[in-house]
């Protein structure tokens, strides 16, 4: 969790499924093996980001509170 993300997506204020669409669009902007951070405050992201990682075969690294939003960390694996 201490690894700095290679790229941060600000999806605060965007409702589901838009944060996950943002993540899917921008995952290719980081090199394979790097971590991308999705900042979101839609409650659905807590379930949908790990589910997306499972469906797309990327690694869900974890989440941490960031003010009123949550930072979701995803490692690009392919």
């Amino acid at each position, binding site marked *: 969790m201490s690894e700095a993300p290679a790229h941060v997506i600000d999806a605060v204020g965007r*409702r*589901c*499924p*838009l944060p*996950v*669409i943002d993540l*899917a*669009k921008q995952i290719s902007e980081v090199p394979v093996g790097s971590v991308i951070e999705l900042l979101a405050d*839609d*409650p*659905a992201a*807590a*379930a*949908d980001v*790990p*589910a*997306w990682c499972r*469906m797309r075969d990327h690694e869900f690294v974890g989440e941490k509170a960031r003010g009123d939003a949550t930072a979701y960390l995803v490692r690009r694996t392919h």
Partner: protein
Amino acid sequence: MSGYFDAATATPLHPTARAALQAALDDGWADPDRIYREGRRARQLLDGARAAVATALGVAAEEVTFCPSGTTAGHLAVLGTAAARRRTGNRLVVSAVEHSTVLAAARHHDNGGGVTTIVGVDRNGSVDPAAFLDAVSPDTALAVLQSANHEVGTLQPVAQVGAGCKEREVPLFVDAAQSVGHVDLPDGWDLLTASARKWGGPAGVGLLVVRRGTRWRSPWPEDEHEGGRMAGVVPLPLILAAAASLQAREQERQGEAARLTDLVDRIRTEVVRRVPDVEMLGDPERRLPHLVAFSCLYVAGEAIQVALDRAGFSVSSGSSCSSSALTPSHVLEAMGVLTHGNVRVSLHGEVEQADVERFLDVLPGIVEELRRTAGAQGL
């Protein structure tokens, strides 16, 4: 023919219910607790309805209480058992995927000083019996497990959990709202609830069954009706309609379950084949015959509901993107599955194969169009 695919919320009134309701409005309007002739007639009808329901459920008539809804019955089951077993303990053990009725009653219990343990589920929405029973500590007043999940259709291992609860001398309440009139009821429970509108009866009738020997008392002020279990006079015409439709459902149930199982199997197979990036939800084998749910990646639940409605199909959704809720379904969250783009299809007697085929024909185009609008194609 019917594009109404939301039987798990409310099933169209069974023809038997309609006939019974019309007859009962003429014959069953008096108070069954009065001793004059009209009251005696009402009492006779109410007793008959109770006996019919008891036979359908395989219980004794005096174990059945009529309530104004499945929700009321669920609240009574939880709070009445907690009240009667206060000296044993103040803990409730519930699965994470119970109906909001049960979770709301548990929160009410907790607000009054009680404690609730919530047991998680696997990705199919099923509890692990061993994990559930581990949570049933000696200070447990009541364990609660649904017979089948209302959002994804997974059947819960009630018999195993019930046997373990019996060993621990803890009563088990089973919310059977989605099962009564659809599948055989599991063994091993002490309290059970159901809702008439889920089997083709009218809204306004719920069932509370408390097995003999189960400690239970009404959490409400004393009242003479329904043996002191449910306050207020009963809506006799609705109860007669509910009982008649349950009897009729029981007659048709086996054949209808086989037919709907095939239609749901067709949906489970074809949706995944025809629509890319769909997560089919719930246990493919241990499931209700008439209910299937799936989530479509990158699609808003409300948008897909509206588009299907326009195409003539009424479905429900557990997505928070549906207008009625800000948070996604607690069931989908607990399962760890995609919560957006969620569609629940639940079938009934008026749905034919041709309806399902038309649904399968229109769904791929709807999902494709919504993904294109959201700029999410090819992601």
